[in-house]
């Protein structure tokens, strides 16, 4: 009898050579099934035979795997500590089902949430989501139930559900994994939202950097159109603008305009896409909904920490030994995530900083490792959990270079609508360049902008320049229209606060003497 081998066809697995490994197994006479990724990225390409895992594989390893002599075996995948420690609600099917197979989806509990919604009615559906305590997983953390209630109560001939799949944050790949690994779950979540608020049309707006996710979602939408009818769903492709991850920019982009931020109010819930009431939720928010409906809002809310209910798919990335997707209830500490689950750095050097929440999130030193992972604890520590991406840096990281990058990124991606973001970010780059010019570091791999005419050398002392940078950050934080300009100060100020030596400033302990 032939051996069945399961290998992911997720973009990350493909980038690591999964197609070549799959071809080698097929050539050896095996039946190859392409499934979603388990999320253990350091083991990709990972092959599963009778529940046992082997990885990371190359095509050359295949004969030894089939002969039972491969040293790359990891034993039963489901019992691997990385998997066994998780609470997988959203990623319950990860690694187990074929992404575009409707039979696999239905057999693993798919569509149970949508059926339940139809059984209990629109109002009770929203009540379940409210009871779950689900907050927007895109970063802002706004309660989903309240947003849905606002749209449901709005009177309009046409309403929309828009899925924000423009997750452009470095270290956040959970959206991509949902779309590539379990697209029907996201569609089911959107169909439930549409039914609950009375919307008949929906869009999934996906960033163009994710061609594999776009292809999977388009195929999935075609395959299940009859199941979600009368709800009509369409996939739209972004065009390479980070700011379109901001919900009002995204709406403008969907309308065919420049992706400029809109001032709020009016809220998109009342005047959203084409001026109509619109639910705009992130992928992970909508993907959590089928589970909530199928199992009940209170079951979801029973997991979590404080006001952060349910689970969070946390993404371990950057210089980390065991990178991947780790879904768990809120409340696990940052140190557990980085050291125990992530295994520390991939380079084997000490951890210097962990950026939490993507490019707009703060850099945290190991002294923050006691922080429980939830919205409030990170806000209290001048940070944010954002989209729950963790980027680990070892001790070779130059933190003033990272601060400079944050400003440079903001300058490159600013939509230009508001002055603090548009001008402030450019001035921020110049300012950090002047600070760095006075405090050169050996490990300086960052390109510098040429000195500009207003960068008069010696016009200000280093301390004055740093005060000016802090001032500029305050202006951006409180004067910007959206999170791009408003949150760029988080990486900048956190780097300055925790690693002043990289800015040429005295360490706090020395300053006190």
């Amino acid at each position, binding site marked *: 009898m032939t051996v069945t081998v399961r290998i992911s066809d997720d973009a990350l697995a493909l980038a690591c050579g999964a197609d070549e490994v799959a071809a080698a197994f097929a050539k050896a006479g095996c039946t190859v099934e392409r499934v979603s990724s388990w999320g253990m990225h*350091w083991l990709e390409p990972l092959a599963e035979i009778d529940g046992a895992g082997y990885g990371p594989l190359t095509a050359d390893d295949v004969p030894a795997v089939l002969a039972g002599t491969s040293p790359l075996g990891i034993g039963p995948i489901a019992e691997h500590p990385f998997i066994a420690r998780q609470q997988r609600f959203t990623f319950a099917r990860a690694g187990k089902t074929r992404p575009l197979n409707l039979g696999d989806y239905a057999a693993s509990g798919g569509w149970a949430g949508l059926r339940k919604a139809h059984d209990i009615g629109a109002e009770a559906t929203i009540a379940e989501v409210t009871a779950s305590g689900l907050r927007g997983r895109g970063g802002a953390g706004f309660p989903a139930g309240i947003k849905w209630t606002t749209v449901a109560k709005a009177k309009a001939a046409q309403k929309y559900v828009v899925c924000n799949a423009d997750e452009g944050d470095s*270290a956040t790949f959970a959206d*991509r994994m949902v779309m590539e690994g379990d697209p029907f779950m996201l569609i089911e979540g959107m169909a439930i939202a549409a039914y609950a608020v009375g919307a008949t049309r929906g869009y999934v707006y996906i960033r*163009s*950097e*994710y061609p*594999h996710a776009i292809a999977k979602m388009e195929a999935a939408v075609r395959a299940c159109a009859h199941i979600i009818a009368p709800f009509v769903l369409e996939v739209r492709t972004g065009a390479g603008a980070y700011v379109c991850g901001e919900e009002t920019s995204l709406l403008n982009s969907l309308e065919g305009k420049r*992706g400029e931020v809109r001032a709020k109010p009016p809220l998109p819930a009342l005047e959203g896409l084409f001026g109509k009431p619109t639910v705009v939720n992130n992928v992970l928010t909508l993907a959590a909904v089928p589970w909530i409906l199928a199992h009940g809002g209170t079951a979801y809310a029973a997991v979590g920490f404080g006001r952060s209910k349910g689970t969070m798919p946390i993404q*371990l990335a950057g210089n980390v030994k065991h990178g991947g997707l780790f879904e768990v209830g809120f409340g696990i500490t940052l140190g557990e995530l980085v050291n125990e689950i992530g295994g520390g750095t991939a380079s084997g050097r000490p951890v210097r900083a962990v950026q939490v929440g993507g490019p707009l999130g703060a850099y945290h030193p190991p002294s923050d490792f006691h922080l429980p992972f939830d919205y409030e604890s990170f806000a209290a520590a001048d940070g944010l959990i954002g989209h729950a991406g963790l980027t680990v840096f070892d001790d070779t*990281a130059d933190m003033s270079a990272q601060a400079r990058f944050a400003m440079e990124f903001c300058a490159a991606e600013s939509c230009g609508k508001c002055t603090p973001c548009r001008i402030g970010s450019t001035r921020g780059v110049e300012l950090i360049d002047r600070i760095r010019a006075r405090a050169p570091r050996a490990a300086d791999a960052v390109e510098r902008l040429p000195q500009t005419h207003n960068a008069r050398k010696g016009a200000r002392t280093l301390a004055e320049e740093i005060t000016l940078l802090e001032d500029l950050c305050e202006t951006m934080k409180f004067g910007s229209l959206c999170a791009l300009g408003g949150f760029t100060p988080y990486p900048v100020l956190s780097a300055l606060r925790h690693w002043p030596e990289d800015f040429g400033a005295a360490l706090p302990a020395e300053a006190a003497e």
Partner: protein
Amino acid sequence: MERFAEIIAAHAGREGALLPILHDVQAAFGHVPEEAERAIAAALNLSRAEVHGVVSFYHDFHAEADARPVLKLCRAEACQARGVDALAATLPEQNRVKVETVYCLGLCSVGPNAMVGGKVHARLDGAKLAALVESLA
């Protein structure tokens, strides 16, 4: 001109049709020519300035033609943490391949990463990156 009309017609009646049209024009011509902007503006009842404003806003659309193959190298934070800046410095000066920077391909635990066409490449080192550039040139 006929090709522009075909592309525009394919999206007739769609809500917010401008971006899908521009994606198709960009894919067909490698850039968005001036004549395309005029044709689109006329068809969608927009000013040419409005269409050009959209073309110039998004990184994916280019007003100028560039026939070189493109390698998109991710230089976002997670790839920085895995040494992409030092890796990029090893790239030899050459003009045959256009090396573009992207901020995040979503493969953040196996960087440094790059994308060529629709194909993604992970765990790049100097030799792999050089081979990738060589394969395109």
